């Protein structure tokens, strides 16, 4: 569902508006009767089946060896300049 809402309404009714957004409502934000933007729930792709199954059972060509652990490799990645 999409509703229209003024900036003034957003300021005064924010807790209720936030709850509606969390339940899936999208709002078109009006400023001086003109649409200036949209408010809505974060679009998060439901289900990560592809990524879960891939990393649960990586195909043979995606199995690697390293003397360092994953934590060590990522730590290096985050600290090297």
């Amino acid at each position, binding site marked *: 569902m999409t509703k229209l809402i003024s900036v003034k309404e957003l300021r005064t009714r924010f807790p209720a508006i936030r709850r509606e957004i969390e339940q899936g409502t999208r709002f078109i934000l009006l400023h001086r009767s003109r649409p200036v933007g949209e408010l809505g729930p974060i679009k*998060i792709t439901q289900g990560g*089946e592809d*990524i879960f199954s891939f990393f649960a059972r*990586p195909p043979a060509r995606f*199995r*690697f060896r390293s003397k360092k652990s*994953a934590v060590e*490799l990522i730590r290096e990645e*985050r600290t090297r300049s």
Partner: protein
Amino acid sequence: MGHIILVDSSVFVASLLEDDPSHTSVQRFFALLDAQDDMGYSVVEPATVVLEVANTLTRLGHSQEAGDITAHFSSVEIMPIDRAFINSVLPLLKNINLKTADALIAAAAHLLEAALITLDKKLLREAKKITPAYTPEEYMKKRR
């Protein structure tokens, strides 16, 4: 909305490294999420995580595979590091003793009310100050 999780780069890389001490448990973690599809898990990642996984594999000499692996992140919501994100993260930095790359992962999990899954003990300890954070083993115990 189901469970939102943010999986750290260390977890993805451990599932690909056969010698990693957490290799088996991480694969069991992903298998559990795959099997519990009806629980509505959603994965969200800061853009840096995908690049870190790819670059780590590239540095190990597997640039072709690194490119191919990023395609498997297509079902993941990628969180951009934009101005809004920066403005939201700044107030959180004083609460966690982490370098920037780690801090933005903890902060992203906090902002999205996601559970952070990591193998990195320091990131885990500090992230817990602002967001739920677990090792893959801990998260599996919680979800079974």
